[in-house]
């Protein structure tokens, strides 16, 4: 069952000359890990804002088409209502954090949902630990580094345990190892708790391996949509200028040379190492 579905969704920001997204019809199934990518300015962030109702309720502008999230028509339900089901981690954490301590920021969403105090305490600590921010829980968010703020923003959404988590380049300020740990946490929540994940990312080397669905956007349209191995191996993905993982690129270079590699297209270093070992081993 699709937990997010858009039908011919078109949206224009107030004062903009042309729509930021055009005729987008996509389906995200419950429990899926979906990667949304595409060139800078192609409408990824705009699409995310539709998923939790910030568009049209906060941004106004002109919307056409339909969007349903967790069975609700987004146009007919306020963002505050949708917040129970969809959590959005913003691209810029400064636009999201406002409280005087990390802990209060993370508790805010739960307070609004009316979660009992004991439960709230438990969830806040759980989310802070997952994001690696527990030790800094009493610090004011605005005094933290960009990377630390991003982790608070992620924790504040995780704490609510929504059915769908939408993350807009959530680790751009984080060091690679911390970013990797965050992606692993999100992947685990996706697999263990069945939380649906929609992740906006350019760095596919880091993230493609987690996804079971990829949507590539270009100039406001969803131009490619399907299984990541298939989509990232396509000539179209390369032409759009998506950062196809190095492992996939290397596989294609060797395949072109006529090396007899298996047909399993690799997205990660582990996957290509296995493919290569099979051939190299055969030559031993």
């Amino acid at each position, binding site marked *: 069952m699709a937990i997010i579905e858009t039908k011919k969704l078109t949206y224009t*920001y107030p*004062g*903009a000359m042309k729509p930021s997204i055009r005729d987008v019809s996509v389906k995200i199934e419950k429990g899926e890990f979906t990667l949304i990518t*595409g*060139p*800078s*300015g192609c409408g*990824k*962030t705009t699409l995310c804002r539709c998923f939790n109702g910030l568009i049209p309720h906060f941004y106004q502008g002109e919307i056409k088409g339909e969007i349903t999230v967790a069975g609700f028509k987004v146009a007919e339900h306020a963002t505050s209502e949708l917040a129970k089901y969809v959590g959005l981690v913003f*691209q*810029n954490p*400064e636009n999201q954090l406002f409280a005087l301590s990390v802990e209060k920021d993370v508790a805010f969403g739960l307070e609004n949902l009316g979660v009992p105090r004991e439960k709230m305490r438990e969830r806040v600590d759980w989310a802070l630990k997952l994001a690696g921010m527990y030790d800094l829980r009493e610090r004011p968010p605005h*005094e933290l*580094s*960009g*990377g*630390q703020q991003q982790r608070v923003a992620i924790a504040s959404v995780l704490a609510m345990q929504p059915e769908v988590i939408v993350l807009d*380049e959530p680790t*751009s*300020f*984080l*060091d*690679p*190892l*911390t*970013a*990797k740990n965050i992606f692993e946490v999100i992947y685990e929540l996706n697999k263990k708790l069945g939380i649906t994940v929609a992740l906006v990312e*350019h*760095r596919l*080397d*880091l993230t493609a391996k987690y996804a079971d669905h990829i949507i590539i956007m270009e100039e406001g349209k969803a131009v490619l949509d399907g299984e990541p191995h298939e989509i990232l191996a396509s000539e179209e993905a390369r032409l759009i*200028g*998506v*950062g*196809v*993982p*190095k*492992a996939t*690129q*290397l596989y294609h*270079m*060797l395949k072109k*040379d006529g*090396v007899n590699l298996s047909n399993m297209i690799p997205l*990660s*270093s*582990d996957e*290509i*190492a296995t493919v*290569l*070992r099979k051939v*190299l081993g055969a*030559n031993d």
Partner: protein
Amino acid sequence: MIEIKNVFFTYPSGVEALNDVSLVVPDGDFIAIMGQNGAGKTTLVKHFNGLLKPTAGKVFVDGTETTKVSVATIARNVGFVFQNPDHQLFSETVEEEIAFALRNFGFKESVIKKRVTWALNLLGLTQYRKTSPFMLSGGERKRVALASVLAWNPKILILDEPTIGQDYQQKEKLRQFILQMKTQRKTVIIVTHDVEFVAECNPRVLLMREGKIIANGEAKAILTNLEILTEAFIVPPQISQIFMKLTDLGFSKDIIDIYEAHKILSDFWEKEKL
């Protein structure tokens, strides 16, 4: 040339961000500074244009100590692009934003016009000339911030996380531009977490940890050293990861470039065929 001599820096909150850092950046050098969040990377580069002055130690830019001159004076030679573009942008149109610094530096209007057009074109922003920077996407705003600094053509360029929000084509353009700066003997210093971008650019790499420089050398040597990378909270680039998994088959692990990787593997199969 930038010279950092035994620099310490402590923030008013008491956090010690730099702990006895010494470094020489000759003209024409291209450096990537990498390391864990809070390692002191941004604090260090803020010393390069005098935004921060050392608590102890000395910083010289082209022979002048940064405590002796204003930030505005240094800025003419040292361009700085912040991590978060929203800390930098304020004008009503993209064009105005880019022209702002040029006007402050007293360029002639005819020159300003040319430089603005050049920068808009370089960063793929021409269509947004009259648009408010705040109407643009995150990645586009980052490019406006880059354009506004590149426009005045500083001798030393400091870019804090220049690839955030950028797609593959934009990154490739940025890489070409940096290489061009290098041939003009200009200095480029980037602070970045983007290991794949560093592997493609092949600069000198500095790793920082807890306010100290813990490694300083060629990208190829550092990005293939798992031990030191882990200490700096860096994951090796994908090509390096692949070869780390093949060392038992007699391959060298010191490879970060996809074209080199391709050549090594195809040479291997050529030999097998003979």
